[in-house]
């Protein structure tokens, strides 16, 4: 057993599951999407990205890039939420909510790719 793999796998899978939790629900309904969950998704994604820094292997590079994609999408979603609620004061109208959840859906896809690569790499080295 490899301690680093355990920590690494934990955060990557957690990032994906939290992201999925936020994404789940009617896309335009603010009641189905919790702001605290979005916060947790962003934090865990950042930690996962941090853990991927420094790996010099090919797979490490691809994993890092998928994480960066997820981060980018989530940051945009968070900015959109903040501006709608606190800056423009338009509130969480259905079209705002749809955009935010769609962005988090993109991040979810990047996280799924990340987990698939992790699983494949582990299986390959066990070959």
């Amino acid at each position, binding site marked *: 057993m*490899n*301690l*680093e793999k355990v*920590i*690494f796998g934990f955060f990557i899978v957690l990032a994906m599951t939290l992201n999925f939790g936020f994404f789940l629900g009617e896309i335009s309904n603010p009641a189905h999407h919790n702001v605290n969950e979005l916060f947790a998704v962003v934090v865990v994604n950042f930690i996962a990205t*941090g*853990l*991927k*820094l*420094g*790996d*010099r*292997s090919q797979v*490490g590079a691809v994993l890092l890039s998928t994480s960066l994609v997820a981060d980018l999408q989530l940051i945009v979603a968070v900015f959109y939420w903040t501006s709608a609620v606190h800056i423009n004061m338009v509130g969480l109208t259905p079209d705002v909510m749809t955009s935010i959840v769609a962005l988090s859906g993109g991040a979810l896809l990047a996280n799924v790719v990340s987990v698939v690569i992790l699983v494949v790499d582990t299986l390959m*080295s*066990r*070959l």
Partner: protein
Amino acid sequence: MAASVDLSRVTFIVLREMRKPILAIIIVYSLSIAGMIIMPGPVVNGEIQYLSIFHAFYFMTYTATTTGFGEIPFPFSNAQRSWAIICLYISVITWFYAIGSIIRLIQNPYLSKALAEHEFSNKVERISGEFIIICGFGDTGSVLARGLSDARLTAVVIDSNEERIKALKLRDYKVPMPGLFADASVPKHLIEAGIRRADCKAIVSVTSNEETNLKISALARILNPNIDVITKSKVEIWEETLATIGGKVHIIDPFKTYAQLLASSIEQRYFHSFNNWLVGDKSTELKQPLCPPKDGLWIICGFGRMGQEIKRALNKQGLKTAIIDPKPISPDEDNVETFVLGLTTARTLKLAGIEQAVGIVTGTDDDGQNVGILLNARSINPHLFTVVRQNSHENAAAFKAAKADMIMQPSLVAARRIMLLLKAPLLKPFFKYFVVNQDRAHEMNDVISWVQESIGDKVPLLTSFHVTQKNAKALADFLENDSFQLGDLLKDPRDRTQLLDLVVLVAKSAGESVEVLPGSNYSVKINDQLLLCGTDFSYRLFRATVNNEYKLYHVRTGLRQPRSYFMQWYVRKMGREGL
């Protein structure tokens, strides 16, 4: 460059051959169209309708090609119809003439040859990675091509016999093997085969003509000074000439090679089966002892090149020899127990002392005779050890049924020798190591036992591995300021308490020092050449290890190197080497 020259030749031939038919079609069409527009048409609305140039051309297009869509834009007048009859017959005949010319052109042998050459040089240009040129696709060439294909090595084949190239194109090789029907001793064809390319590792000339082989070898050396030249030779005077052309030249003499093999088999009873197994002979079992008798009288039937080489080898082993040959031998020949002049028959065999003999070598160049002698000799003395020469590949079934102890097939011996030279040049010092010293027999037995245990029935892999930045990035980086023990390198990266099914038979360092069966504490250096033997799967794991710094660290230390900055910081903080 060669390709464009060929292409311009093709264009030239096409243009020259098609000039007359194209001219004929143009003249016939223009006259017909001119006639059609002049001919007065039917009267519509009180006016005579003439055909426009466009309509006339349209009419001619379908008439000349016998399609016949009808009369447009109005039904023709009789004047137009009579001209149309003339046009139809003439233009159809002209078309047939043009089509005939095209067919003749396709069948033109020069054109098809130029096209074949063009296609060939295109195929050669598309080869990526290293390749080998084989001149001559006879028995030796085809066995060699098959072996190279199994080892995933591409070869370019040139043969002066069209049938052989057709045969090549019908084979199912695992890698591309472009073939050209041409005379390989013409420099142009060698250049087309890519001899000047840096990827071209070696040229093997194994045509049936010794003189051609010599010419090809010399040409190859001039065209590419760095290339390995490998050629088959059965005549000693050529060998002297070949040896002086400079560079790396290997002359394969199947008879000498086989005599050496026989001598080594006499010393080492597993040598023969191990050798056969290494070269990929699927019919031999690994630990199948072959015990040619070590003392007594051997009878050699036919004292040609093979007989002479084998006699020399046997005498060196301290064995007595008797010779039967229709031609008298030179009186200087020593170590001859008995010499019987004449063809080998029951009578001459008895004269040579077949009753007391322990072994017989039938080495004439006639397959029927060789089998005949074998059966004859066995009926007189059933305990003989038999070595028989098989000249033609086609007679394989007969020789197999005759159940000789050793079958010598010159083309096969040469092909295998060349194969080993290309794939595993370090095998020579390996075998030499065992042959020079009898006491090393147990070491060889150890290797064979190991191989049998860990590879068993699986397909053996024998390959050279060059420790370079390209082949082993991680290892090469590590070796820049440290040394690596061979024992660690052969550990299974998945579980380092286990060893890979891989053994290093020979390690040759850049300083040309060769170590046979290096121990686990041999320190690997950059630019080392390793001769590896094992399974394909283990070799893949091995290559993964030497190219991945994390795996390399793991097999060396047993610890896991922290990958991310965070874990590196954590490990440093805990004062540890790895995880």
